[in-house]
């Protein structure tokens, strides 16, 4: 994201805080796809992701005046989306009555489908815990730097750095549980 985009987003959020609906529409156009993609990857469900997008932008409209400019506008919006998504995930886990993390990590066994390295890695990624999947998404999908990720997740930069590699190690472990060794990939 270049400086011009950042400045434009800052100007838009300032106008939104004064109730400017046109600025809000413009801000939505600039950011919603990124927010939706993030939510979809996290929640793995289109309808739920869209519901959270609606909630997120409603919060943006109501809380634009609270934006202090300490981070990028997109990072601030992603932070709102993440909070709402985490609440939703907690609700979903309560409803399901299972520990989703453990479930995902313990799903083992090589698939019966023909061996396909890329497909296997994708499958393994979907079996990662939400925490690990999320950090991989933010790094490799959203191409955020460590500082931006720390602002979205509200954790120290050093924790972000270590979590990326823990996530990669966890991916290797899931692949191993699926019967794929490091040499296979």
């Amino acid at each position, binding site marked *: 994201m270049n400086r011009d985009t950042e400045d434009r987003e800052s100007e838009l959020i300032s106008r939104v805080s004064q109730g400017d609906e046109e600025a809000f529409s413009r801000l939505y156009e600039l950011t919603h796809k990124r927010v939706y993609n993030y939510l979809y990857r996290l929640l793995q469900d289109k309808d739920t992701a869209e519901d959270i997008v*609606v909630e997120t932008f*409603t919060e943006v*409209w109501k809380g634009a005046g609270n934006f202090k400019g300490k981070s990028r506008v997109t990072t601030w919006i992603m932070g709102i989306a993440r909070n709402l998504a985490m609440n939703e995930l907690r609700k979903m886990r309560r409803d399901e009555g299972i520990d989703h993390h453990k479930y995902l990590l313990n799903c083992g066994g090589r698939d019966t489908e023909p061996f396909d390295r890329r497909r296997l890695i994708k499958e393994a990624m979907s079996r990662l815990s939400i925490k690990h999947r999320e950090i991989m998404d933010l790094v490799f999908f959203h191409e955020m730097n460590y500082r931006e990720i720390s602002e979205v997740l509200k954790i120290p930069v050093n924790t972000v*750095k270590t979590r990326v590699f823990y996530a990669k190690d966890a991916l290797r472990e899931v692949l191993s549980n699926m019967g794929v060794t490091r040499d296979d990939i």
Partner: protein
Amino acid sequence: MTSKPDELRELIPLYLNGRLSEHERQEFEDALKVYPELKHELMELSEIKDLYREMEREIPPVSENLYAKILSNIRPLTDKEKVKERKGYTEQLLESLKGLFSSPRLSWTVVAAQLVIILFLLTTMPEKDGFRTLTSQSTSQGELTRINVVFKEDAREKEIRGILNAFGATIVSGPSPEGLYTIEIKEDKKEVVLERLRSSGIVKFVERAY
């Protein structure tokens, strides 16, 4: 190359995302020749990044009516806010109070508090004083009685005032052209007052008014 392997490792995601400066990138690529493990890790993460590019294409597109849903969420807020701006301070205050008391829980709390206050007053107020609301007369009408009295021509104003004050009487009307006063006294003192007035020597006529 002065960077430690762990520090170089942290640079992999930034290298893959093109977030390193030219100088940092060059240093990193030099390190790849020295540390085979770093290169292996780079290949692993590079493959993951490629997969993300594939997965992006697999994400279903956003529904076209999504923005309309957001608008329907924020428009009621917008309208409410505009109405609020038009209203004066007093109206806003009244509306806030109305909102406050529309809570059933709060209403019941207020009712309970009032009941406690009433019970407290009933148990602590001296019985003889009774209760009086702000709109009532200074004393309950039921406890008073009226008396018609005509004083003698030679009765002085000081004597009349003295006797009336002694009974706590109030002049309700009079004097009429015939010298008739109607006074009000407490019902329970009626007989005593009538007797005292008759024997005072300054009263020509005294009788209970009906």
